[in-house]
């Protein structure tokens, strides 16, 4: 028993000695060999544990950096908002500079001062006054269009009413000078309060949606050609002899930013060429819309012509006699021998026959007074021509 205990003790001592010797050898072994041994261990049995350690370290880094991430995210959001505000301000400044270059002279640039009035959307304070030449009843404009009018002017400040003010009114016309009237604020509620009305337009003059309305220059306050707004729709009113249109204003009072005050001498010289690009853009858009309408009209006429031919065939009538009757009103004085297709329109989209042209004189109606047109034909033509 004692021998066993002594043997176990010697074994333990031997193992301890061996381990300590190896440990000391590990302490003093060359660096290269030390690195090689460590790398072998890391790539072997220790590899899965190192993966665990790496993930745990990543989790801790995530937890620790969460606050930094939130802080950085907030900073980025603030910077983004400030950048957007700066961009918007730059755009407004560029536009107002463009307007200034077009006006060339006779204006004063002004900033809107913060006001404490209840109706701050309808009356604004400007940081320019009589010292800069500003006088009452001078127009205030932006790059988008008419903004308002100076009501009172002190030496260094002035107060202007915007187009939304109940006292605002301006003589206006459509950009193509087809309709004249008075533009005044639309005294509705909610979002409708920020609209304008184009009143007193003659009933015979219908304006399309999107028509640009500019100042007409009638009166002494607003020169001709300042963009006021665009037509949204017609408003039903009690006045049956005139039309009233709802306008979307060109310059929003809540937009803020720099404005220009047109001095009296500049207003008297006129600003016809200043907002020309806007008017021309409107004309271009309406031309495009008209082209689209023309195509639709041609297609409808072609369909109508085909329907007529089918009806004629079914009724067994003489084509020649109906041709005379189907001639449109606008071409009743024609002496040409038109066929049923040609009687519709020359620019119809229906394909022309590809056969050989007829030889000899074309059959047609004899010259003389226009033939009578059936009332049904008139009704068929009337709405199509109106398109």
């Amino acid at each position, binding site marked *: 028993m004692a021998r066993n205990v002594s043997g*176990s003790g010697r*074994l*333990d*001592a*031997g*193992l*301890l000695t061996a*381990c*300590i010797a*190896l*440990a*000391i*050898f*590990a*302490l*003093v*072994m060359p*660096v290269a060999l*030390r*690195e090689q*041994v*460590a790398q072998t*261990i*890391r790539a072997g*049995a*220790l590899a899965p*544990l*190192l993966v*665990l*350690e790496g*993930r*745990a*370290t990543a*989790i*801790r880094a995530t*937890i*620790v950096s969460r606050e930094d991430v939130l802080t950085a995210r907030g900073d980025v959001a603030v910077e983004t908002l400030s950048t957007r505000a700066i961009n918007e301000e730059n755009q407004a400044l560029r536009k107002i500079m463009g307007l200034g270059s077009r006006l060339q002279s006779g204006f004063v640039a002004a900033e809107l001062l913060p006001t404490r009035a209840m109706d701050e959307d309808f009356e604004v304070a400007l940081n320019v006054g009589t010292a800069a030449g500003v006088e009452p009843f001078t127009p205030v404009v932006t790059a988008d269009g008419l903004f308002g009018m100076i009501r009172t002017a002190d030496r260094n400040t002035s107060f202007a009413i915007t187009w939304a003010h109940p006292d605002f009114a301006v003589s206006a016309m459509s950009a193509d000078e087809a309709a004249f009237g008075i533009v005044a604020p639309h005294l509705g509620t909610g979002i409708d309060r920020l609209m304008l009305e184009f009143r007193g337009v003659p009933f015979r003059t219908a304006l399309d949606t999107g028509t640009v309305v500019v100042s007409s220059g009638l009166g002494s306050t607003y020169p001709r050609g300042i963009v006021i707004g665009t037509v949204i729709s017609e408003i039903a009113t009690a006045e049956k002899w005139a039309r009233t249109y709802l306008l979307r204003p060109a310059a929003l009072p809540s937009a803020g930013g720099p404005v220009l005050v047109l001095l009296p001498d500049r207003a008297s010289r006129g600003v016809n060429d200043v907002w020309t690009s806007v008017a021309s853009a409107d004309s271009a858009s309406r031309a495009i819309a008209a082209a689209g309408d023309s195509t639709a009209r041609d297609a409808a006429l072609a369909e109508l012509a085909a329907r007529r031919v089918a009806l004629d065939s079914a009724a067994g009538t003489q084509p020649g006699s109906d041709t005379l009757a189907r001639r449109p009103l606008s071409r009743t004085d024609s002496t040409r021998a038109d066929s049923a297709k040609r009687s519709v329109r020359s620019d119809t989209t229906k394909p022309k026959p590809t056969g050989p042209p007829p030889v000899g004189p074309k059959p047609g109606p004899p010259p003389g007074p226009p033939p009578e047109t059936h009332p049904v034909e008139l009704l068929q033509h009337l709405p199509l021509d109106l398109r």
Partner: protein
Amino acid sequence: MRPQQRTSGVGSALRAIAGFGLLVVAHFSVRPLFGSRVMIDFILIATLFAAVRLRPGIAAVMGFLLGLSIDAMAPNSFGAGILALTLIAFGASWLKAVFFANHLALTGLFVFLGKWCFDAIFIVASRGALGVDLMLQLLLWTPLAAALTAVVAILLLTLFRPLYRAQPS
């Protein structure tokens, strides 16, 4: 030896191996979550808890292998961890009578002393600190880490008693 006793011994050994493995895994997965200068030394707890079940020589070999795994992560101090854990494991196995008392406070004290000795041997062997830094490490940071490790060892003994309770032979 009766079959029932043999089965009980095998189950105890399996539980001990499982507890040892969990502590080693915790050293590499839980320890990095607490990024502080005062850290829990799960490897030392595993060494101490396993050493009391082993012969001193075998415990020394176990300490050698565990130290090798630690030093593989710190090649600059390669060998210091091996030496420290070998001595600690051999000493714990040799002093296993302390654990037989199965007293939590004594176990905590033993873990505290084991951790302090391990750090002392490791720092001296690796020449990691000298002068004031050595004193600061051995008298401030190492006791704090040793206390924290002892507390965790007591908690483990309390919560996972079947895994880490040493049975007298």
